Structures are given as structure tokens and as C-alpha cells.
């Protein structure tokens, strides 16, 4: 909301500069985002007298004017403005002039004729906006002196300030007007608002004879006030009003429309004007829409109405959507002679529902749907009438037509001062709490028990009456906030850490995440954070077939864009995107990881019954699985190039090593890696990870098609589910005693079929060696010219040890022979 400072000063005494006012208001909750100074002085706009008017040779409606502005030589101006005659005094903006709103004026050429300036309308002079409905060039009074600046003739101050307010939902209910803010200022300064001018000069036929008002829905429209204006005189509003409207962000149109807008901004009460001649039988009926009715709005859109919607109708048909938008058929035009002004109070919920259903937001609806003061309609109608008569924009018919079927009573709340103090941590005396509330317009009355004078008075409980404009205050805690902010939040005490001592705990799951992240960063990987919202195209890129379970990814009902429409069922797309992003910037040596949820559809979402879910503890995992995942990505070289050379390119085994490291350090249990056929990976360079026999993830080189599409060279990716990994820290590790006896080392090297997986070879060795084998290390693998095709040479170093004695050769030799024999017997190995 934009609030002109001068307007506020008219309603209340403001002892502060605009910027100080902004600070004070912000501290009571009326947040001022910015203060802007506005300059209305129109430098370069002077009084000029028309010397001659001749038609433009090429354009019949355009005229070429010669003007004289004081002592300087004559100027030529091209204009389409009608009704100008020699001798008229007009405002001339010469090239280089500046109109309000920082609009500049330059010389221009029209149809071959150079125009040395521009003639201004009142609206242009007032606020720099284009002329209003049917508005022409301003004709200055006879006393104006050619050559003198125009600004002093406008009778308004040359500058003003505009406060840009950012109102929260509750303040929008009572501070979205100059009066609302003025009340806050009055509360701050301990004064009260200045009364508005409501005295109206009334003439002619009484309003009730012009219009009949009938409210058929007292719930939807508790109060309806109408006033009738006749003998309307079209034309622009006075300069001061135009300036204020423009400063508040509205475009001046004509006197009647400007008055309704002005009162809306000043008092917060939306008004609407109907053309009396276009209201069938001069009747206003407030009712629900009938089936099949339609309304052509002032915005030019025709909308079908449904029976729940509240409308203003004449004797035949709807002429407005109550509190939202007027109809084009009965709206006022510059030729309107008699207008019916509506000032009403509508039910917030009905306005909100209708506005949502039809998708229309207007200044009126955004106020009505929150709260409008039920006591404001007659005041607003009178204020509009007073403005109309002082502006000589028309005449006011005597009296108001008012229907108020169910008077809205003010809210009364029980307030315990002790409770307010307990909430705020203060020890305010009751009198102070009450004074603070009274400053804001509340009334408070002590609640007495019984009628006898002798009964002790409970000085704690008050009955507080909420002002009619404060629809946001509905409970005792709201009063506590009013008491607090009225005294200033800065004045409230502060204290720290009272009550029982507690131990802060991090859940085991999060500790495990941090531990994994710690290991991975130590191993050289950077953590990334990517968007959980992906598009179906990202799943296409991962080569998932149409019937893959991945395709059942959860979908948003109202996505921002198609590429952010799904909740990721895998973290791989984000990883690929980050790799491609960096590779595109020649940052190709990457080690990355992300830990976060993948979203898995587990049940029919339409079957979710919120009430029963809440009853059963809020668990949603039967429908949506949020599975914590870890994704790893490696690309480029193991270490960057330096003076000893560059590192080798990372490959599958770097990735596998990381997974093994995590499994070991996080005590996942037994890991197994098996060839797999995940569509996103290179068909023969991928594995499925089993932990304790269960599939927990996949790892491998990305499929060549994906790499090619992303412009990547080689990239390795692993995705591991963390959800079912054993939680960390449940049982503390016990010491493993250090070996007390020396080990015996034996190597074995042999050639075996390349198709025998290393895991099988290792299993054969372990089984043959039995309990004496402590560990084994594969220290060489060779495949090439020196061994037969289809076979490879392997070399293991075996460590034998017994816990209770020093092993002798006599003991180890037969065991090692068994190992060698088993390799020959079971794998057909040729020993070397």
C-alpha cells in the first residue's frame, strides 16, 4: 500500500519527519518498506497564450498552434486537443520540462511539423498521468501571466512523500487506509484522529424517492447504505485529489470515480457507483445469483454466475458482483447524470469464495474478503457526498437509504491481566494494560462479581470491547499482543534458559548422514544440494523404459513448469545435471555427493484420509515413501595435474572403493557387488550393491548414450539407499585385542579363466584356508599377451595367524598347499 504523507497529516497530527514516521510505524507492526519523495513542481511548464490555430495540412484533426509565453519568441506546438481558441491561456511544457512522475518533455516532429513543446491537461500537471476520461487541455484563468511558471496556480504543495507499506494479513484488515494508519499514529502520540468533513449540502428529491433498496440476504450483506448524486458535472478532479490518487498508485479518471477511490483509500471502505438511469425501476436488490445468470463486468469480461454468489441486482438482472466488481451495463460514464452510490458491508467469506471461484481480485474484494468495518458504510457515503459537493461535481439528494437488518455488535473479550503478564513475562499493573488498549481504541471494563458493594473487586478480569475496525482481534492472546506492541516490543524483558535441564539429542539417522558426509568429504568429495523437483524428460534421459516403476513418480497438481512437475524418484538426475553444468565450464575433475530423500509412490494418494492419518500419528509412509538416498559422482582425474604429472582417470573401482569405505566405516554389514542391468549405466560396467543380501543400490559408469547427450567424457555414479542401513551409535564398539603372535605370510599366483569372478576366487581361497587365514590381499591382476586368451593372472598375498600361538611352517605349509590345490581343482588354475 502506498500512503501519501500529506494525506496522513490531514487526518492526524504527525510530529515526525517521513523517515522517522516510517521507523515508528515499523516498530508497531505497520511495516514501511521505503519512503519516496515526490516532486510535483513541474519545472519548465509555463503559462502561454494561444496566438493562432491552423489545421495541420496532412491530418485533419491535428492543429498547429502558435503560442506566446511572455517575452520569449513565439513557439509552435502540434496538438490534437479540441476546443482551443486564440487568446486562451494554457500550460505549455517546453522541451526539457519535467512533469511529475519524472516524465520528460522533448521537441517532436508530427507529420513534418516540429512541435516545440506540449500542452498539458490538469491530470498531466497534477501527477504526470495521461488525461482522464474526455479531459482536454487545462484552460488557465484569465489572470494568469504568460511566461510565468504554472505550478503556483495549482494551489498545492510542490513536494510530498509516499510511504510504501508492506502489511501483514492482520494489519491489512485495519491499516489498509489512511485512517487506519492515522489511528496507529494517534495511538503512538496519545492523540486522536482529526474528524473528517461530513457536512453535506443536500438538495432536490430525497434519496429514498430515487432508489429502493432491498436486502434479501442479510448474512451476505449485513449493511447496505446508498446515497444519490444528481446533476453530475463531468470533468477532472481537482489537482490535490489527483495527486493523492496518483501517489497512492491509482490513475485519476473523472470526478465521480475519483471520489469513490479517494474514500476507499482514505477510510478503507470500498464504494461503488451505479448509473441511476440504467438501474431497472431504480431498484437495488441484494440477493444470491439465480441459475443461468451472467454478468458483464467493468473489465469487459462476461462471467457465468452460480447460485452461491452474492449479487447486486436491479429489478431485472445482476448489476454487480457484491464487493468484487461492478457490471458494465449499469456502471457510471462521463454522461451519467444521476448516480447511486453504494457503501456496504459484505460477509468476508462470501466475497472471498466468489472472488476465488471467478479468479477476480479487485481493490474492493481484497478488502472485503479480509474485514471491513461494519460501522464505516454511512460515514464513507457521507464523506463521498461531502467531497462531491465541495468539488462542485454534482448535487447530493437529501438523506441516506440504509438497510441494516442485523446490526453487527462489537466483539467483547474477557481479558485476564495476570494471563497477559504471564504470556509477556511482564508485571504490568492492570491500569497500564488498560491504558495501552484504550490508546488503540479498545474499551475495557472491570468485571465485577455480584452486585454487592462489599464484594471484593477482582482487579484482574476485564471485559474488553474491540473497536469495529479491528476484525483481527478475536481472542485474549490478541489483546496480549496489542498490550505488548502498544508499549513497544523493545520494552519487553528478556531472560534465558529457565526450567528443567535437558540434553539435546541428534537422531541416529542424522548422525549417520553426518558421518557419511564426513567420510566422503575426507575422501575428497564435495557435497551438492539439488532440486527435488524434476521433469519427466529427466527420466527419459536416464533411459527408463515406459513401464519402469520409476515412471510412477509423484506428480504435482500445480507445477510451475513441466521440468519441475515430478518429485524425484532417484537422485541421479540432479547429479548428472551438476556434472554437466561444471563440465560445461571446463571443471571436469569432480567428486560429488548428495544425501537427500527420493520420493516413492507407495499407495493410492486419493485414498489418504487426513483425519484418520492424524489419529494414527500422522504417518504417511504407506502412501509416500521419503527414502533417504546417497548419490555419488566421480569424473575426471583422481588428482589434478601437478609437477609430477596428472592423476589417472577415475574408473569403476574408485567408485566401488568409496562404497566399500562407507560400508566399512558405517558398519553397514556384508557388502556384495553383482553384475546388473540398470538402464542408466554402461551395460558391462555396472553393479548392484547388496548389503547383508538385500539390494540397496547401484553403481557404475553412466551409459554411453547419457554421457554423449550430456557432453560428458566418462562419469561414474552410485546411488545407495540409506533408509534400511543399520543406525549408528546404538551399540558402542568393543576393543578388538591386538594380535600377540606373529603372522606368517605366503603368496600364491596363478592363471585362471578371466570369467571366474574375483569374488569366487577369494571365496575358494578363504574356504580352503580355513580359520588360520587372517586376511588376503589381491596384489596383482594381469590380462594380456603373456597369458592365454580368456584367462588372467592373479596374485594374492595371504596372512596366516593364530590368536593363541606362533604358527610354524609345519602348520602353515599344509594349509597353504590346500589353498593351491583348491585353486587348481575348483577353478582349473595353473599355478605359477
Amino acid at each position: 500500500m502506498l500512503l501519501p504523507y500529506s494525506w496522513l497529516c490531514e487526518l492526524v497530527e504527525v510530529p515526525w519527519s517521513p523517515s522517522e514516521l516510517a521507523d515508528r510505524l515499523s516498530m508497531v507492526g505497520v511495516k514501511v518498506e521505503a519512503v519516496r519523495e515526490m516532486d510535483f513542481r513541474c519545472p519548465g511548464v509555463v503559462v502561454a497564450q494561444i496566438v493562432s490555430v491552423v489545421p495541420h495540412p496532412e491530418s485533419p484533426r491535428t492543429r498547429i498552434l502558435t503560442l506566446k509565453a511572455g517575452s520569449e519568441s513565439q513557439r509552435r506546438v502540434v496538438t490534437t486537443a479540441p476546443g482551443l481558441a486564440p487568446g486562451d491561456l494554457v500550460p505549455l511544457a517546453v522541451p526539457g520540462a519535467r512533469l511529475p512522475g519524472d516524465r520528460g518533455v522533448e521537441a517532436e516532429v508530427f507529420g513534418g511539423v516540429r512541435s516545440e513543446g506540449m500542452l498539458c491537461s490538469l491530470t498531466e500537471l497534477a501527477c504526470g498521468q495521461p488525461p482522464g476520461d474526455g479531459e482536454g487541455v487545462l484552460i488557465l484563468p484569465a489572470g494568469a501571466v504568460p511566461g510565468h511558471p504554472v505550478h503556483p496556480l495549482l494551489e498545492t504543495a510542490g513536494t510530498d512523500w509516499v510511504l510504501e507499506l508492506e502489511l501483514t494479513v492482520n494489519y491489512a484488515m485495519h491499516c489498509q487506509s489512511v485512517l487506519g494508519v492515522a489511528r496507529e499514529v494517534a495511538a503512538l502520540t496519545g492523540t486522536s484522529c482529526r474528524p473528517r468533513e461530513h457536512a453535506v449540502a443536500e438538495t432536490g428529491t430525497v434519496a429514498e424517492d430515487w432508489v429502493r433498496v432491498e436486502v434479501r440476504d442479510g448474512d451476505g450483506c449485513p449493511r447496505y447504505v446508498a446515497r444519490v448524486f444528481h446533476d453530475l458535472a463531468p470533468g477532472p478532479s481537482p489537482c490535490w485529489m489527483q495527486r493523492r490518487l496518483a501517489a497512492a498508485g491509482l490513475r485519476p479518471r473523472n470526478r465521480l470515480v475519483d471520489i469513490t477511490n479517494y474514500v476507499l483509500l482514505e477510510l478503507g471502505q470500498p464504494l461503488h457507483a451505479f448509473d441511476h438511469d440504467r438501474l431497472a425501476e431504480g431498484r437495488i436488490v441484494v440477493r444470491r445469483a439465480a441459475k443461468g445468470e451472467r454478468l458483464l463486468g467493468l473489465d469487459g469480461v462476461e462471467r457465468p454466475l452460480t447460485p452461491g454468489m452474492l449479487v447486486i441486482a436491479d429489478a431485472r438482472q445482476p448489476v454487480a458482483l457484491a464487493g468484487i466488481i461492478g457490471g458494465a451495463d449499469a456502471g457510471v460514464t462521463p454522461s451519467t447524470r444521476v448516480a447511486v452510490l453504494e457503501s456496504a458491508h459484505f460477509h468476508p467469506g462470501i466475497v472471498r469464495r466468489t472472488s476465488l471461484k471467478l479468479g477476480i481480485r479487485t481493490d474492493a474484494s481484497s478488502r472485503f474478503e479480509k474485514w471491513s468495518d461494519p460501522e464505516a458504510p454511512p460515514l464513507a457515503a457521507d464523506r463521498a457526498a461531502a467531497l462531491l459537493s465541495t468539488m462542485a461535481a454534482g448535487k447530493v439528494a437529501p438523506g441516506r437509504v440504509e438497510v441494516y437488518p442485523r446490526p453487527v455488535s462489537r466483539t467483547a473479550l474477557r481479558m485476564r491481566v495476570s494471563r497477559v503478564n504471564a504470556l509477556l513475562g511482564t508485571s504490568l499493573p492492570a491500569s497500564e494494560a488498560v491504558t495501552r488498549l484504550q490508546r488503540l481504541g479498545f474499551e475495557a471494563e472491570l468485571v465485577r462479581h455480584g452486585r454487592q458493594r462489599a464484594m471484593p473487586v477482582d482487579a484482574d478480569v476485564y471485559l474488553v470491547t474491540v473497536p469495529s475496525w479491528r476484525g483481527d482481534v478475536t481472542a485474549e492472546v490478541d489483546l496480549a499482543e496489542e498490550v505488548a506492541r502498544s508499549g513497544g516490543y523493545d520494552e519487553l524483558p528478556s531472560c534465558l534458559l529457565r526450567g528443567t535441564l535437558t540434553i539435546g539429542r541428534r537422531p541416529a539417522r542424522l548422525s549417520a548422514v553426518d558421518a557419511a558426509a564426513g567420510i566422503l568429504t575426507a575422501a575428497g568429495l564435495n557435497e551438492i544440494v539439488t532440486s527435488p523437483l524434476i521433469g519427466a524428460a529427466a527420466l527419459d534421459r536416464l533411459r527408463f523404459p515406459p513401464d519402469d516403476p520409476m515412471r510412477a513418480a509423484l506428480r504435482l497438481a500445480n507445477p510451475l513448469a513441466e521440468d519441475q512437475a515430478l518429485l524425484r524418484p532417484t537422485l541421479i538426475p540432479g547429479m548428472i545435471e551438476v556434472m554437466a553444468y561444471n563440465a560445461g565450464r571446463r571443471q571436469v575433475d569432480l567428486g560429488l555427493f548428495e544425501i537427500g530423500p527420493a520420493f516413492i509412490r507407495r499407495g493410492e494418494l486419493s485414498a489418504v484420509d487426513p483425519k484418520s492419518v492424524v489419529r494414527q500419528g500422522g504417518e504417511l509412509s504407506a502412501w509416500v515413501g521419503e527414502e533417504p538416498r546417497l548419490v555419488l559422482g566421480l569424473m575426471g582425474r583422481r588428482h589434478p595435474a601437478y609437477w609430477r604429472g596428472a592423476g589417472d582417470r577415475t574408473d569403476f573401482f574408485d567408485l566401488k572403493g568409496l562404497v566399500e569405505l562407507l560400508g566399512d566405516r558405517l558398519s553397514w554389514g556384508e557388502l556384495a557387488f553383482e553384475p546388473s542391468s540398470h538402464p542408466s549405466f554402461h551395460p558391462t560396467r555396472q553393479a548392484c550393491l547388496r548389503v547383508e543380501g538385500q539390494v540397496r543400490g547401484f553403481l557404475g559408469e553412466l551409459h554411453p548414450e547419457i554421457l554423449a547427450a550430456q557432453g560428458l567424457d566418462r562419469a561414474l555414479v552410485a546411488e545407495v539407499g540409506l533408509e534400511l542401513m543399520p543406525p549408528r551409535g546404538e551399540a558402542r564398539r568393543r576393543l578388538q585385542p591386538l594380535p600377540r603372535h606373529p603372522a606368517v605370510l605366503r603368496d600364491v599366483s596363478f592363471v585362471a579363466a578371466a570369467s571366474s569372478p574375483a569374488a569366487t576366487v577369494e571365496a575358494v581361497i578363504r574356504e580352503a584356508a580355513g580359520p588360520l587365514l587372517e586376511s588376503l590381499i589381491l596384489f596383482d591382476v594381469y590380462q594380456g599377451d603373456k597369458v592365454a586368451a580368456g584367462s588372467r593372472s592373479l596374485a594374492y598375498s595371504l596372512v596366516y595367524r593364530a590368536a593363541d600361538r606362533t604358527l610354524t611352517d609345519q602348520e602353515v605349509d599344509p594349509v597353504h598347499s590346500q589353498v593351491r590345490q583348491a585353486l587348481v581343482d575348483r577353478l582349473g588354475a595353473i599355478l605359477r
Partner: protein
Amino acid sequence: MVKPDIDRLREEALAAVAAAEDIGYLDHLQVAYLGRKGRLTAILRGLADVPASERPGLGAMANQARAEIESALARRRQELAMELDRRRQATEAVDVTLPGVPRRVGRRHVLSVVRREIEEFFLHLGFSIAEGPEVELDHYNFELLNIPRGHPARETQDTFYLTDELLLRTHTSPTQIRVMQMLAPRLPVRVISPGRVYRRDSVDASHLPFFHQVEVLAVDRGITFADLKGTLEHFARGFFGQGTRVRLRPSYFPFTEPSAEVDVSCMCEGRGCSACSGKGWIELLGAGMVHPRVLEAGGYDPEEVSGYALGLGVERAAMLCHGINDIRLFGQNDIRFLDQFGEGEC
């Protein structure tokens, strides 16, 4: 005749030792003078021909000469060995100004670092961490937080829906209800809840459709606004530095009453800078006393207990701490960005 022989021999031997330039020559000298067929040994043998009365004197003299030569040999041997070491080591010199072997240690994402910093602060105050789902019921995200359907506050949080009932949570506040429902009627409740939240906002320098928050909730008998204020002041000093001041402005959240917008004093001390756009204060977070209806929804009697809650934006805190001016950098994951921040660093 023998005595001058011994003296001469000794002088000659010592001179030869002193002049020796390698250890092999010293070995030769040792043999030549002191060996079984050495010259001093020969003199000693010749003592047999000396009159018995002169023998002790000459013997002692010869032994002393032998000791002197032996010690000279040992000394020279050590000198030469050291010299040899020195020479060898000279050839082993490294250029200490060559760069060291690069070790790659990665970093956590700055959002994780800042989130953990916030977590650690509250863990030390005795708050435990609780998590909540990102796909949330409308009920928890709005209804039970005193934001019924049609409430104007729903409009300020543009929401992604999956169905009419399921949505992507727009804040971490639903965990307030989840935690209270789980713990009620136990006291005190001291919980923080970090997590990702979503808003249907188009991407620009200050908006992403997803970001991170940390929710803080304390419920107990007798908790007041003063406890909230004290906690905020303590946090601001811990997070932004000892001199940091806190300013509370009245604000509005449907699930707290009274509510406050919390500003912290800018590092520029009000002199004006781009971070605070010259105002001297920076908006940090929203907070307030838990609304009675929210306490009720959580299973507590608002007449018996009270509480405070606050919600802190992790991106916002990170941007303030590190001078990051574009929120999109967090999700871009440019390695040059990722490499700048890490745990235990400033």
C-alpha cells in the same frame, strides 16, 4: 737411539693421519703404523734389545704414542665420515619451494554447514532434533496451525499440491504439531526441526521453489515472551558475534500470538551498507508465542502451558553470514562455489 725413533714416528704418523683424505687411506695408515707388522709395533719389538733399565720408560712412551695415533685415526675417521655424509646430502637437496602434493579434501555444502551451526547452537541449549516429512498433509501444514481453508494467510504461501489433501510443506512449522502430538503431555518440549520446504515461487535472485528452514519450539509451564526474546538475543550473539543486537517488531503468523519479526543489527553498526540497505538492521526470522489453538492441536492445555516458536531460513542465514547475494548459487553447485565454504571455517 729408540726414543727419538718413537717421537719421530709419532709425529710422522699424526701428520699422515691429519693429511688423510679418505677412510681407505686411514685403514692403510692404521696397518702401516699399528698393525702386526707396523712400524711402531716393530719399535716395540725392538725394545727387547734395549737395556732392561730403559725398557719401562720407552715402553710407556711407545704405548702413549700408540694411543695418540689411534685416537687421531678415530677422530679423522669420524671427520671424514661426516664430510662424506655432507657431500652425499648435498646431492640430495630438494627445492622446498616446489608445490606440495595436492590432497583433495571435499567440503560440505554451505547450506549443510550453516544448518549444522544452527543445530549445534540449539543442541547445546538442550533442544533435540526432530524431522518431519516434506510431503505433508494440508491438515498439518495449515489446518492445525490455525490456517483453515480460506484463511488469507494461505495466499501468502503459494503452495504445491499433490492432491487436495497432500502438499509439499511450505514451512517446517507442521513439525510443531507432530512433535507435540508425539510428546504430549510430557514437558518440557524443546525441539528444533531442520528441513526443506517448498513455495510455488518463480526463480530469481531471492526466490527458489525450495529452500531450507530450522523450526525451534519450546513448550513448558510458564514460558513467556521474555524467554523467546532472551533466546533470540543469545542466538544472535552466538551466530553473528557478541556485539549483535536484536530488535523485535510486531508481525503476524496465524500460529503464533503475539508474533514478531526479528531483526539483527548489521555489522556496519548502522553506518549503512548494502547488506542492510543503509538501515542498520537486517531481517532475520519470524517468531512468536505458540497460539493457544496450536497448543490445543498438539494436545496441550493452553491454560496450563505456553510456548514459543521461531522459524529461521537457512539460505537467508547463509547469505547474511557469507555475503552471498544470489540464492540461485546454492542450487547451481558450481564447484568454484562449493570449494569456498566448509565446516570449521569462516
